[in-house]
C-alpha cells in the first residue's frame, strides 16, 4: 500500500540535502564571528544546487505515497521541487547583491530562506492534511521573519506584522475547514477524503469546508479577496524576499491548490481524459475568482508610484491568469499553468533583480526615480524592458507563449467570457508596464551620473533574459516537460 518510513528515505534525498544545509548553516552561524561573511550564501547555493541535482536524478518514485501516505513523489511534485529550487538559487544570488541585506546577519537569513524552500518541497508533495498543514506553516512562519528582516525599518516591521496577522488567520480558517473534512470522512489522507465525500450527501458542511480551505490556499497564491496582505508585504519586505515570495510560495500554493482540489473535490474521468468535479460546483466559483483577481490586480496597479508595489499588484494579476488553467479540469489546462509558472519565474525574478540593482545605486524604489535610466544604466534598463514586455505578454517574449497556452485552453473549453476578461486585462496591463519603460527611456534623467552594474549581476541578468527571449521562440522542450509533469498520483 503506502511505503514505510525507512524505505521512503531514499526517495527523500532532496529534502534531506536541504535539511542538512540548514543544520550546517545553524552550526556556521554559531561558530563564526563574522556575521557578514559570504560563506552562508555560498553554502546555501551549494546545498540548493545539490538538492536540485538530486531532484533531477531521482526516478519517478515508487508510484505510491511515501512515509505511510504523507507525501507523494510524482511528476507533479518533482516539477514544483525543481521550479522552487531554481527560484531559490536565483534569489540567493540576488540577496548577495542586495545592499539592503549587507549589514544584516547573513546565516540566519539563509536559514529562513531554505526553511521556506523545504516547506515548499513538502507542500508540493503533501497528500495528507496533517502534512499539508505543517508544510504550509513551514512556508509561512519563516516568511514572516524574512519580511521583517530589516528590523529597524518601520516599513519592513509593519509588513511582517500584517503578514503574521493575515497569515495566521487564513491558516486558522483553513484548518477549521480541514476539521470539517476530517469530521465528514474520518480520515486525513486526501485520496480517501475525496472518496468519502463522493459518497456523502452533506452538501452544506462540504461547501463550508471547500470555502474555508480556499481561504488558506487563496492567501498563499494571493488571489482576491485574500490578497490584502500582499501589496503591503511586497513593498515593505527586503526586495530579494519580495521576489522570492512572489514566485516561490505562489508556485507552491498553486501546487497544493491543484493537488488538493483535483483529489478531494474532483475525480479523474478516464474516458474523457480529464477530471470532473464532484460535490460542490467549485470550478465556476474559481472562474469568478480568477476574473476578479486579474481585474483588481491590473486596475489597482495603474496608479502605483512604487515599483515594488506595482509588481505586487502585477503578480496578483498573474495569479488570476494562472487560475484560468485551474478551473478547466483538463490536463492541458494544468500544463498551461505549469508552463506559465516557468516563464513567470524568469521574467518576474528578472524584473525584481533590476529593481535591486537600481535601488543599490539610487536608494529608491519610486518609479519617478527611474527617469533616464536608459542613459544612466542602459544594460539594466533594456533588461527591465524585456522583462516588463514579457510580463505584459507581447510577442516575441516568453510571456506571450505562456498566455497563448492559457487562453487557447479556455477558449477550447468554451469559457468565452473568461477569455474576454483576460484579454481586456492584458491590454490594461500594457499601460502600466509600458509607463515604466517610457519613464526609463523618454524622460530626462534627474541625475546624469552613470549607475554602475557590476559583472556578477550583469551575468545573472543575462541568464534571466536569455530564457525570457528563448522561450518566446523555442518553447517545445519546456512544454513537453510540463505535459509530462501533469500526471497527478491518483489514490
Amino acid at each position: 500500500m503506502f511505503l514505510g518510513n525507512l524505505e521512503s528515505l531514499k526517495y527523500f534525498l532532496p529534502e534531506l540535502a536541504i535539511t542538512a544545509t540548514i543544520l550546517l548553516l545553524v552550526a556556521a552561524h554559531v561558530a563564526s564571528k563574522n556575521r557578514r561573511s559570504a560563506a552562508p550564501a555560498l553554502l546555501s547555493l551549494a546545498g540548493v544546487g545539490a538538492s536540485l541535482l538530486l531532484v533531477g536524478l531521482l526516478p519517478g518514485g515508487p508510484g505510491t505515497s511515501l512515509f505511510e501516505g504523507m507525501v507523494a513523489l510524482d511528476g507533479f511534485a518533482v516539477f514544483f521541487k525543481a521550479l522552487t529550487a531554481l527560484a531559490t538559487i536565483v534569489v540567493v544570488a540576488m540577496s548577495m547583491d542586495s545592499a539592503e541585506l549587507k549589514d544584516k546577519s547573513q546565516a540566519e537569513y539563509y536559514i529562513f530562506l531554505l526553511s521556506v524552500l523545504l516547506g515548499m518541497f513538502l507542500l508540493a508533495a503533501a497528500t495528507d492534511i496533517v502534512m499539508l498543514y505543517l508544510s504550509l506553516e513551514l512556508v509561512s512562519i519563516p516568511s514572516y521573519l524574512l519580511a521583517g528582516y530589516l528590523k529597524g525599518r518601520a516599513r519592513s516591521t509593519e509588513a511582517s506584522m500584517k503578514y503574521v496577522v493575515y497569515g495566521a488567520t487564513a491558516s486558522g480558517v483553513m484548518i477549521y475547514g480541514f476539521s470539517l473534512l476530517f469530521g465528514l470522512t474520518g480520515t486525513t489522507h486526501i485520496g480517501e477524503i475525496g472518496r468519502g465525500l463522493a459518497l456523502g450527501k452533506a452538501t452544506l458542511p462540504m461547501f463550508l469546508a471547500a470555502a474555508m480551505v480556499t481561504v488558506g490556499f487563496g492567501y498563499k497564491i494571493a488571489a482576491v479577496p485574500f490578497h490584502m496582505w500582499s501589496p503591503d508585504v511586497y513593498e515593505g519586505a527586503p526586495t530579494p524576499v519580495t521576489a522570492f515570495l512572489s514566485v516561490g510560495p505562489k508556485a507552491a500554493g498553486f501546487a497544493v491548490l491543484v493537488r488538493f482540489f483535483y483529489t478531494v473535490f474532483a475525480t479523474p474521468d478516464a474516458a474523457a481524459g480529464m477530471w470532473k468535479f464532484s460535490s460542490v460546483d467549485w470550478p465556476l466559483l474559481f472562474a469568478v475568482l480568477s476574473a476578479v483577481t486579474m481585474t483588481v490586480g491590473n486596475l489597482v496597479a495603474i496608479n502605483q508610484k512604487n515599483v515594488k508595489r506595482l509588481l505586487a499588484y502585477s503578480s496578483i494579476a498573474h495569479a488570476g491568469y494562472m487560475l484560468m488553467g485551474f478551473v478547466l479540469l483538463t490536463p492541458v489546462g494544468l500544463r498551461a499553468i505549469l508552463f506559465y509558472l516557468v516563464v513567470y519565474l524568469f521574467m518576474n525574478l528578472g524584473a525584481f533583480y533590476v529593481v535591486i540593482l537600481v535601488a543599490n545605486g539610487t536608494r529608491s524604489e519610486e518609479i519617478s526615480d527611474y527617469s533616464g535610466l536608459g542613459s544612466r544604466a542602459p544594460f539594466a534598463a533594456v533588461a527591465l524592458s524585456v522583462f516588463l514586455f514579457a510580463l505584459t505578454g507581447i510577442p516575441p517574449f516568453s510571456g506571450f507563449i505562456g498566455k497563448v497556452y492559457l487562453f487557447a485552453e479556455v477558449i477550447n473549453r468554451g469559457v468565452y467570457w473568461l477569455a474576454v476578461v483576460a484579454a481586456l486585462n492584458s491590454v490594461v496591463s500594457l499601460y502600466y508596464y509600458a509607463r515604466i519603460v517610457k519613464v526609463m527611456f523618454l524622460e530626462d534623467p534627474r541625475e546624469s551620473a552613470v549607475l554602475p552594474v557590476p559583472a556578477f549581476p550583469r551575468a545573472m541578468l543575462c541568464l534571466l533574459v536569455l530564457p525570457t527571449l528563448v522561450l518566446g521562440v523555442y518553447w517545445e522542450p519546456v512544454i513537453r516537460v510540463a505535459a509530462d509533469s501533469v500526471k497527478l498520483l491518483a489514490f
Partner: protein
Amino acid sequence: MMEPAAYLLLSGILFGIGVVGVVARKNALIILMSVEIMLNGVNVAFIAVGSHLGDVTGSVFAFMVMTVAAAEAAVGLAILIAIYRLKETIDITELNVLKW
C-alpha cells in the same frame, strides 16, 4: 463513543469568538490571542471527532496544531516587540506607512 454535537458547537463558538476578535480588535496582542482561540476551537473539533470515531488521528492533529500555534505565537510576539520598539504602540491602526 460519545456524541460529538455539543463539542462541535463549542468548537464553532470558540472559532467564532476568535474570528470576531481578529476582525474587531485593534490591539495586536489581542489579535494574536484571538488567533489562538480560533486554533483552540479547531482543536476541540478535531479531538471531538477523533474520539467519536475512536481514532487517535484527531488528537494527533490537535497536538500538531498546538505545536504550530506555539511557533506562530513566538514569531508573532517577536515581531510585536520589534514594532513596539519602533513605534511605542501595538495598535494596528497606527501601522500606516504602507497603504495604497
